[in-house]
């Protein structure tokens, strides 16, 4: 009986993981279709999937989600072998770790996803600028930093606010936790 429950839990977790990963690909696709003045500027809409995963997934699973997101994006856009992939990994990984850390260290009553997402976006852009300075831009990366950071701030704030609103209204989100609590309480029998 215990084994069955264990397998059920594994399957459920992997399903949520895959669902969020799929969502991140979907959001990336949407972002890809939005015409942008400069190809470098990324809105980071796909990070919504990561933020939703922070509370739902355990840390190892969250890391897996981040990895899936980055890898999947690279395969879908075919950029696995290029610097674009490196930038993506650098930016997404560092920002995901920061966001996860912030969420776990600071109680939600003090900081919601608005702040978390803003920090995440700034970290992501900062890391990418840093990498770009060495790989494609050289010292001139410094000149590009302020507007990029400003854009990151705005998009991070907007996405975080949306995420907060979403969480407070989402039935799906709450259902995930309820299912988990129900299963955990029944497994003690």
């Amino acid at each position, binding site marked *: 009986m215990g084994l069955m429950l264990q397998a059920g839990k594994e399957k459920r977790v992997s399903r949520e993981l895959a669902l969020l990963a799929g969502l991140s690909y979907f959001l990336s696709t949407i972002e890809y279709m939005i015409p942008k003045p400069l190809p470098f500027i990324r809105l980071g809409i796909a990070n919504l999937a990561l933020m939703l995963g922070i509370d739902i997934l355990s840390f190892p699973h969250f890391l897996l989600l981040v990895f899936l997101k980055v890898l999947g994006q690279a395969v879908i856009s075919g950029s696995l072998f290029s610097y674009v992939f490196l930038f993506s990994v650098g930016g997404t990984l560092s920002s995901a770790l920061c966001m996860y850390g912030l969420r776990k260290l*600071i109680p*939600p*009553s*003090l*900081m*919601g996803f*608005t*702040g978390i997402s*803003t*920090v995440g976006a*700034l970290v992501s852009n900062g890391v990418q600028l840093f990498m770009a300075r060495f790989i494609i831009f050289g*010292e001139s990366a*410094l*000149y590009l*930093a*302020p507007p990029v*950071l*400003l854009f990151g*701030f705005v998009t991070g*704030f907007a996405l*975080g606010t949306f995420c*907060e*609103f979403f969480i*407070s209204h989402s039935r799906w989100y709450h259902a995930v936790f309820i299912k988990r609590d129900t299963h955990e309480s029944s497994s003690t029998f």
Partner: protein
Amino acid sequence: MKQSRTRFLLRPLDGLVVLLSVIGVGFAFWAVYEGAQDNLQVVIEASGSRWVYPLSSIQHLAIPGPLGTTFVEIHQGEAYISDSPCPDKLCVAMGKLKKAGDWAACLPNRVFVRIAGNVRQDGIDASSW
């Protein structure tokens, strides 16, 4: 009731993050675009052409002139003429250029080397030649 209200508002640390970010980004704008950035450049003029290099770079340059090649080096924040096909080598003796406004020139070979401030100033200087 109060609990559901606070979900919509900006929480304290959210606000702090926003504040710090605004200050940080504003500072970034100021520091990069307005601040006292040491943007020193080495400007070399010869044979109707102009060369511009950051003073912080490392360059070994061969500048052509009517008499031959004047060699200019840029290294460790200093620029200087290392050799020139002129009889007196006065230009070499002019030594190392470091600050804005420093200059050296090889008149026989018609090569002028100077240190310019940031680019906006440079435009004004150029027009005063």
